[in-house]
């Protein structure tokens, strides 16, 4: 007899993690943001003007 498929309900994060870090701590958030801006300088589309101009989509639903 084949095994019955187990019903697996999605697990959840504990509620404690939801309550935490509602407010960013000033210092580290700023550092994180600076790091992120450095990263954006590296990975942002090289010719932003051309990229934005060429980004044309057909209308959908």
């Amino acid at each position, binding site marked *: 007899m084949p095994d019955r*498929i187990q019903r697996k309900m999605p697990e959840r994060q504990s509620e404690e993690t939801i309550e935490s870090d509602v407010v960013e701590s000033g210092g580290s958030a700023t550092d994180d943001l600076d790091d992120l801006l450095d990263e954006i300088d590296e990975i*942002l589309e090289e010719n932003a003007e051309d990229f934005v101009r060429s980004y044309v989509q057909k209308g959908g639903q």
Partner: protein
Amino acid sequence: MLVRLGEDAQSNALKQGSTFRPMAVPKVCGIETEYGILVRGAENNPVTASALLINAYTGAVHDKVAFDLIAEDPRRDARSPDPLDPYEFDPELEYVPVNAVLTNGARYYVDHAHPEMSTPEVRSPLESVIWDRAGEEIVRESIDAAQRLVPDGAELLVHKNNSDGKGNSYGCHENYLVDRSLPFGKVTTAVMAHFVTRQIFAGSGKVGCELPGMSSDAVEYQISQRADFFEEEVGLETTVRRPIVNTRDEPHCDASRYRRLHVITGDANMSEVATFLKVASTAMLLSAVEDNPDLEMPALASPVRAITQVSHDPTLATAVQAFDGTTIRAIDVQWQLFEIARNWFEQTGGEAVGEADCALALKHWERILAGLEHDPRTVADSVDWVAKHRLISAYAERHQLEPSSAALRAIDLQYHDMRRVKGLASRCGLRTIATDEQVSRAKTSPPETTRAFFRGRCIERFRNEVLAANWDSMVFDVGADPLRRVPMDDPLRGTAELVANVINNSATAKELVAALAEPNE
């Protein structure tokens, strides 16, 4: 009934609480996302590019594709699974060039000039996040596979956004199962003010303005990708004269019992919390009105005008005109809706949406509204428009850029870029709700508590015998006999509990169809 929007509203909501009768139908739901697509370094044809993207995935990951030939176009030959050569394909033909149903129960296809991923029907908001995220991962794998097929020097870009910044929009739609006996006017009342104002937590943010008649830089930064594109309060259209409440009546199930509310106002979210709360809040409010059709809901005087007024003011200070002639801020409408949903949950236990999902959603809803009221930056880990705004503001300050500069518009686009090496949203510290393991499994496995289980498992197990798969039926080729169609009129049947055994016990589709025809199966 329409509520006065003054200070009485909250007490009104509380007074109504005792009248909820738990009758709401389970809020089966799903999300359909049209992705933006662009080819660089070769001919940029979005139809062929979309076909290439999807065929690269279905060809690379699966050896054969199950095509739907009933719903969309009978000209499509479901028996020719070989991927079309996208560069040979004539884009002028108006049929769906690629239309795959995946083993996770999703539909992955070319819609107009966009690749579209429709999640399988799921039973809870959390599951909608899991399968929406799985859809993103499938798109990422598709990009990797397709990139190997494009000419040298060419590059395929895919964005989970809703606008090109030039007045062209494409949707991220949600669907909710609604009781047919609830008059559609009540459905409209339940959701209209919500669809105008939920963008304050579910908007994905946009540099500039696309409202017809206004210049692009008339708005530096706005809350919603999509708000500029609505022209009607209620209507049938989805591509022109778009309505805030869409009346498409195509339930894809037993029409005598159910409606499918088709929602076209939403932004595609990168934040899992935003997707979760967008779906959960809408599902709770629909359930509340099913449980009390006379429930008083906030009502706005001019929803079409209000949806852009709200979007165009990231300070959240703008008050829009209420039906009673007073004015009210979007966040105050949201506080009223939050109270109604919480009251409904406390009175009924929230079974139609799922108790745990409701409890989680109410926590996030309250936390985010309080954060937005205090300082929107505090919810940059949950709300897309805030996360994007934070990047754009800081980058503009660092490089002394004008608000309409191309670099900021590029950041806006790149926030939604699906390529791992380029996408900015994944670098913003957004909270997650779904686990990696859940998402990974959902790429190939269907949800277990809707008919999507039957669809997905049949495609996995009887791939060569599935002739067509549709939302509400499947057609099997059982050899010499006539084709067999298995109807799936009830989204709540075909679950793992009901059909896992019979699928597992059947060696062929023929055995499956025979077993399903027996009583007590």
